[in-house]
């Protein structure tokens, strides 16, 4: 059994005090330990942004790459070394603004990677601009009159794109998040985990303080079957915002399909 702390290097994370990304790091290291993944045998790849600093705090192999480009780097890594698990750890701006095209293609191909979207609903590193998951009306430095379009529903989008494991968790519920991440790592195929990680510095009002109290674990609901596409979409399509009573967490969708690395038609 590997001590979760052993996955971390000696540097202290440079995130703000109270940043919810610290919780993600705790859950991820525990999940890696649960899956007994050796320290040198995992590659954690990120793009650019606050969340993307995560690999730099790890003791594993890692790549802190370019804005929006973690996924194609991950695809190359998987094709070159299908024996090495790959985790993409990045944010909403990286994945769903500049990186959106790569997300769709990798999900469609069902690359066997685990993609963590640390969603703080903005570009935080550059001090608050609207991202795809910012709500309509979000005031960012480049949209002082408020964002005109509504937020992208990333879990719905992930299912439509072909991801074969789609889940959501609230980062500060580290126990729940750890269980979700463990299952995501264990899944064979494109796993997408939507992590709600409000920004403590730039947009405290992004989610309400009662985030966890509104959470409903859909895997405890009798009418949800994560292997039923209609059921998955029904729950995944409910937006995460202050207008809805519930924030649905848990596994929306799970299925098994051939993964691209081993099923490509090369004849």
């Amino acid at each position, binding site marked *: 059994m590997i001590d979760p702390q052993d996955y971390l290097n000696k540097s202290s994370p440079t995130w703000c005090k109270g940043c919810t990304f610290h919780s993600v790091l705790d859950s991820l290291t525990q999940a890696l330990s649960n899956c007994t993944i050796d320290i040198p045998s995992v590659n954690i790849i990120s793009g650019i942004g606050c969340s993307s600093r995560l690999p*730099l705090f790890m003791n*594993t192999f890692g790549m*802190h790459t370019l804005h929006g480009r973690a996924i194609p*780097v991950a695809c190359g890594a998987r094709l070159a*070394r299908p024996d090495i698990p790959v985790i993409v750890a990045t944010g909403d701006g990286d994945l769903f603004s500049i990186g959106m095209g790569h997300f769709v293609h990798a999900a469609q191909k069902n690359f066997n990677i685990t993609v963590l979207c640390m969603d703080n609903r903005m570009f935080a590193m550059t001090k608050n601009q609207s991202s795809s998951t910012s709500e309509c009306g979000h005031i960012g430095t480049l949209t002082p009159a408020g964002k005109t379009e509504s937020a992208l529903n990333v879990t719905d989008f992930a299912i439509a794109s072909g991801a074969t494991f789609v889940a959501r968790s609230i980062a500060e519920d580290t126990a729940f998040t750890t269980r979700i991440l463990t299952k995501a790592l264990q899944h064979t195929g494109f796993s997408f985990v939507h992590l709600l990680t409000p920004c403590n510095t730039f947009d405290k009002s992004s989610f309400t303080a009662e985030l966890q109290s509104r959470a409903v674990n859909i895997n405890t609901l009798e009418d949800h079957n994560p292997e039923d596409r209609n059921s998955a979409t029904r729950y995944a399509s409910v937006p995460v915002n202050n207008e809805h009573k519930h924030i649905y967490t848990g596994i929306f969708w799970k299925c098994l399909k051939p993964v691209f690395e081993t099923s490509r038609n090369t004849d």
Partner: protein
Amino acid sequence: MTGTAGDGVIGAAELFHETAAALGIHTSLYKSIPSSIRSGITTATISLWNNTISSPVGNAHCMALFTHSDSALSDFASQQVYVNSYVFDLSGSSTKLPSSFARQITTVPVATLKPDSSPLFFIGILANLTDIAPEQFNEILHCKHASRKQRLQSALADIANGYSWAKSVPTTVPVPSFLRSDKILTTINGNDALSSGAIDAGCRFFASYPISPATTIGDSLSVNLPEIQGVAYQAEDEIAAIGAVTGASFSGVKAMTATSGPGFSLMHEFISYLSAVELPAVIVDVQRAGPSTGIPTHHAQEDLLSAVFGGHGECSRIVLAPSSIENCYHTTIDAFNCAEQYATPVIILSSCAFASASVTLQQGTQLHPQVPILQRKSVPDTNMDESFQRYTNENSTSPVLPSPGDLHPYRVTGLEHDHAADPSESSAMHQYQTLRRELKLQTIEHDYAHLIEWDLEKASSYNADFSIVAWGADVPAVKTAVRILRKKGYSIAAVFPQILFPVCHNMFEKLLDYSYLLIIPESNSSGQFSKLVRMHSGFSPVSLPFSNGEPINPDILETEIASLVLKRHKND
């Protein structure tokens, strides 16, 4: 041979080229094709050689015209002809060509032929002129049309008819002598040579997005790499392609991508990244006429400055350019060796002229590496508690590069970093790393001296009338022009570097010993290599730009050089 795309001009030319090779004739084939599938003008240039193959284009001894469309006539008229050049008009048009086209024009009666029969009829004519019997085309035709009996019969008949017609009609086509050996010769085109070189260099990962004229590199690697447990991956765009190459390289695999100008522009950010994190990678730019979409299937060498300077920050890289189709193989092997030795992105500048041109191999039936293949160093088995120092002077060239699964995990980052790869914002560290990344490349002129080809006269030192430098696909034309000018009595010092960046300072210093007049012909209008040379040496070269979308014609080049030298000497 000039005709409308889709009417069989290229197919016919390829048939002649491959048949000639099978008969032991050294031959080259250059294809100029439009960027659409079925419209536009196509020109095929076949050359038969007496000795070393050089320029695939030049003044033609014999020309065939299959259409009188305005664009064909305009293209045709712009091509230089020899004084006694012979034109066969197989357009079937009732309009006669003006006598200004050529001194000798023969209208070939093709009115009863189907449009795609005329090119094969001309092959029959050519066969008669070059003493190749029609039945010698049978074997290759049988392979091409194995499942289409009617097509095969029709093709054989067209060639036989053309041959008979030529026999019955006296012509005075100036066919020069060419060598015919008793060996079957192998043909290869630039893109296939490059792909083979990559495989023999140890490349086992290729990612690309289709773009003319680079796509066929991926076509052949998509078939050949899986057969040797390698991976060829079609990415969703060029950024994804080079991203995948980056991931594969970090994972310990030699990796390459191939694109053309527009796609290469998209890759600049990752080139900066690869330079910063010091990962080996090979990026091929098969150049085409630009800017923007330009002419996707026409030749140019307009991406040099983009290759040298494209990207942000001080991001060093190596730029190589093969100087012949055979060198597309060898230089690719050198590119992979450079990438591993210097842990840096290496850009190969090929061009449309090599991509779509085919030559017979000078020797043998297969290309083989002429240098040892460098392998990446694996991590020594040491105590994992020791901090791995990736970015130090001692680990700059032929570095130890751990990859996932090895001991000493490390993280690469595009942020400036310290010796142990941790992010650093220290001014001193930034200065140290910037200089180290730049300086590590400076030994390339010495380490890869075989990539600099000198063409000097026998005397150990002499005052040349001029010196001349050329790169990439311009080299064959310049070599031919130098040969012609030397026969006319000029004294010349020529050098053909395949290393374009870092600039070979010692090479240019040596050139100064021969002449202060340095002429640089280039297939671009702004004299890109001249600009680079001016920045890095004591020369102010004279640029001779050619930007007509075709390889330089050595006969035109020779005239322009002679005129320039005469003017210079008059002014001295």
